[in-house]
């Protein structure tokens, strides 16, 4: 998969000016979304998300740990992401690219700031034992927009995650045995969506070809019009008017994606 040549990039931009995309989508249209949950039986919760040819796997694991000193009565949250070398010819063995670190941070903040997980309910014994919620994200095939695929996957995995059985005597979970209890979640589902600016056009869910020529992007984690976290990535500037359009696009799309998630979770 070569980097999109300038020549092709120019054509993509021209076409976007006419409101059209190479794969026939509208500017505000997602690729076909497939969400499958329970894809890894040993995880507390897991999901596979496909956006066209892009694929990510997300798993949720729980463990018992000590609370942080500044949140004695709350469970902990940790998000990691790995861009598997298998997922793109552009990746090589060795240290992870910045993108995977940023992705984990962006997804972490969206879930944390929206209080999607009720961490207070994940306290086992104040100051001593709490549940540690670990969300691990892996890219399987990168054809653009890993960020949104990861966000959708994290939500789907959390919504289907069960709490492991807890052994009072050892103070540890019994791995591989689960209670019927789900992870306590808020009613609001924060959805993380990224809008890209290419030329003068704003688009969502770029393919790799489009992502290559994207000049700047804004990832917004929101639910019902409330923004919980936001990140502008890449160096091109944005006008306030453009920013307004981005928020409009996010608000409109967020509802569609929410429905998509709900209808795919058993």
């Amino acid at each position: 998969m070569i980097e999109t040549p300038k020549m092709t990039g120019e054509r993509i931009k021209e076409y976007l000016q006419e409101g059209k995309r190479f794969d026939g989508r509208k500017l505000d249209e997602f690729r076909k979304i497939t969400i499958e949950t329970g894809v890894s039986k040993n995880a507390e919760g897991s999901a596979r998300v496909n956006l066209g040819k892009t694929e990510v796997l997300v798993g949720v694991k729980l463990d018992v740990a000590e609370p942080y000193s500044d949140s004695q009565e709350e469970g902990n949250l940790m998000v990691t992401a790995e861009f598997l070398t298998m997922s793109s010819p552009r990746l090589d063995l060795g240290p992870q690219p910045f993108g995977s670190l940023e992705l984990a941070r962006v997804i972490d903040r969206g879930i944390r700031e929206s209080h999607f997980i009720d961490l207070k309910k994940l306290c086992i014994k104040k100051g001593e034992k709490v549940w540690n919620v670990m969300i691990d994200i892996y890219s399987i095939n990168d054809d653009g927009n890993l960020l949104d695929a990861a966000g959708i996957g994290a939500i789907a995995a959390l919504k289907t995650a069960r709490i492991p059985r807890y052994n009072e005597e050892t103070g540890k979970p019994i791995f591989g045995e689960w209670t019927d209890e789900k992870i306590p979640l808020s009613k609001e589902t924060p959805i993380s969506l990224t809008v890209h600016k290419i030329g003068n056009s704003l688009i969502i869910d770029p393919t790799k070809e489009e992502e290559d020529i994207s000049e700047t992007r804004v990832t917004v984690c929101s639910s019902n019009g409330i923004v919980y976290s936001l990140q502008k990535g890449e160096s091109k500037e944005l006008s306030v008017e453009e920013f307004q359009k981005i928020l409009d696009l996010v608000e409109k799309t967020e509802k569609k994606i929410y429905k998509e998630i709900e209808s795919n979770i058993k």
Partner: protein
Amino acid sequence: MTEFKRPDGRKINELRKITAKVGVVPNADGSALFGFGDTIAIAAVYGPKKMHPQHSQNPEKGTLRCTYNMLSFSVTERIRPGPSRRSQEISKITEWALQPIVMIDDFPGNVVDVHINVIQANASTRCAGINAAAMALAHAGIPMKSMVTSVSIGKLDKQLVTDLIKEEEDWEEGEGPTDIPITLTDDGKITHIQLDGNIPMKQLMETFELAKEAGKQIHEAQVKALKEAIEKK
């Protein structure tokens, strides 16, 4: 003698349900998924390509490089992401299992990368990984003398069985568990064998018959998946 009872009701020489598919990672030059029941591995091949760093190149030979990895949530107790001593050893074992069949010297100075990821584990992950890798290499158009099939033969107490599951790896009765992952070429040559447990040498030699028998079914599934990938179109 009463029939030996396995925890999941399988016959002693019965494999779990095999899943085999190619083309699961569209970006890769070749890719495949292989599963024994709940154990699922995916493999993707990139190359031949230039080896970095340059000093690690051999101008006369090609390099086959395998990386085996388990996703953190593939097992009940989370694994820290990143390489471990175990995964590094299995990566090397996988290379050794595949090198005899892969005609890697057709690509002097170049590397063929095989990335294996276990997405769900219930024992025999290295075998599933090797089976997926062989399919992915073929799918990537890499010249090969033969395919390979890999299966874990076990000895539970005194009984030999095919394709161990986790529950059997922890066998507590009698002589306990012995795990013998074996990889064979199409004509039954051994490219990989390991063993943990206890087994008389005479009985160890009997394991190859079981591995060959299982290998036939694995090979059939590998071939079917590769053929279907072209025929479907």
